[in-house]
């Protein structure tokens, strides 16, 4: 076996980024240009969307309940329990919902993308596509990007709704607040600014996750160890990019929508 050092030098990093941009560019172009792989896209949407439904519901439910519990406990010591709904609502819709669902998506769908594409590379299936004159970027990457662009926002909305319901359950049954008041403060929170931020984020996250995971999968090298490496990297890089992008987006949106911090 030939030994290989796996530290990424600056040169390699720049090369990788260049390849990454090229792949995203070509794959994104595939969204608007023929050929369209509708069937592959629907398959991906089924796997990514329908397949992630239960895990998103489960995790969002508990996040919503825990958050509501924590906040109402804290606020009741200050006698401000009636703000629970508002704080839970904003936290879920603007921050936690998009980030939690995106992380779940990266863990479940992203790792699947990287390992599937990785094994296709190692098994020469990607080369076979190229020999058949089919562009793997269009056939494999574009459907996964489209699927993420469509499914992650939907999953996020579902996750948000479930979290708010969980929060409601705790607020009413454990913290003994008025349910009507909880919902009316949630309704207040559902204004344009908050909803816009809450929906924009999953679009951006979905695009990034799909691109990163496809790139990692397609650049797999070197057998089972290589697969492990690219799958791990796909998930880790996705998570890092999610949290950093979230911060940047939050900052940018607050600025654009005219809040001062």
């Amino acid at each position, binding site marked *: 076996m*030939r030994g*290989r050092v796996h530290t990424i030098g600056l040169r390699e990093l720049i090369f990788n980024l260049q390849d990454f941009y090229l792949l995203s560019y070509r794959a994104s172009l595939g969204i608007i240009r023929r050929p369209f792989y509708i069937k592959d896209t629907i398959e991906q949407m089924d796997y990514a969307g329908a397949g992630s439904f239960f895990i998103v519901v489960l995790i969002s439910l508990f996040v919503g309940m825990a958050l509501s519990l924590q906040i109402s406990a804290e606020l009741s010591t200050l006698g401000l329990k009636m703000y629970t709904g508002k704080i839970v609502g904003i936290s879920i819709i603007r921050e936690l919902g998009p980030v939690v669902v995106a992380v779940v998506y990266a863990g479940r769908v992203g790792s699947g993308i990287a390992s*599937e594409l990785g*094994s*296709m590379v190692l*098994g*020469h*299936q990607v*080369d*076979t596509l*190229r*020999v*058949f*004159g*089919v*562009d793997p970027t269009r056939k494999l990457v574009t459907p996964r990007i489209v699927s993420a662009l469509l499914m992650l926002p939907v999953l996020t909305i579902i996750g948000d709704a479930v979290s708010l319901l969980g929060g409601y359950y705790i607020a009413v049954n454990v913290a003994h607040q008025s349910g009507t008041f909880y919902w009316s403060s949630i309704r207040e929170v559902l204004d344009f600014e908050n909803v816009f931020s809450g929906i924009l984020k999953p679009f951006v996250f979905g695009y990034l996750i799909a691109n990163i995971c496809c790139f990692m999968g397609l650049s797999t090298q070197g057998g089972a160890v290589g697969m492990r490496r690219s799958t791990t990297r796909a998930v880790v890089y996705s998570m890092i990019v999610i949290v950093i992008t979230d911060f940047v987006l939050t900052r940018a949106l607050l600025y654009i929508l005219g809040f001062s911090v």
Partner: protein
Amino acid sequence: MIEFDHVSFAYGANHVLQDLSLSIGFGERVAVLGGSGDGKTTILKVILGLIKPDAGRVLIDGEDITTRDEEGLREIRMKFSMVFQEGALFDSLTVKENVAFCLREYTHLSEEDIDRKVRDILSMVGVEAAMHLMPEELSGGMHRRVALARSLAAFDPKMFLYDEPTTGLDPINADNICRLILDLAHNGKGYIVVTHKVVDALKLAERFLFLKSGVIFFDGGREELMTTADPDIRRFISELNYGTDTHGEDFPS
């Protein structure tokens, strides 16, 4: 006509092909022999433009393919039919869908026509019964046959490329695959078959290339092969005298 003009290729510091020059006509029956890791598969990938050489030119029908992009390579790739080592079936698709892949991609045949065509091709390679199975349910030999079938459904190639079509198969299955390869080449079409089994190479080819560490150190016909004094080649050929196969094993070099 495939021409290599001083082609070199390296994976990082691993110099796989070194200053390789050769030419092969589309009608020739060529066996590329060599030990594991000597760059046999790499040669096929270079021919198809799947990897670009670091130096030198590759000419297909007189056209330099090293300067072409993916789009431009398409037309070149359609001149060949390639079966990869291990078959490389799409493991998310059934046997039928694998074979129908190019039909669906490039033609507008009706479902019945596709069904009939796939059935015809599969019965030609003798695995019609496996039509609705998934690739993971196939045995090694069936896998290779389906891969062959899929490459047949593609286009009308000028030349076939086979990467170790018989490795890992028992002698009977290996022999069947060899027959199939010969059958497919009936109308004067040539092939390049990569193998490290001299037995199969002798069944299939008229011209033999021996590759070692990225250099061709033998290029000749059957006579020359059997009478050569080169000790490395003699070691390969000695396999014949024992009458045994080295299935899937790397031949010592």
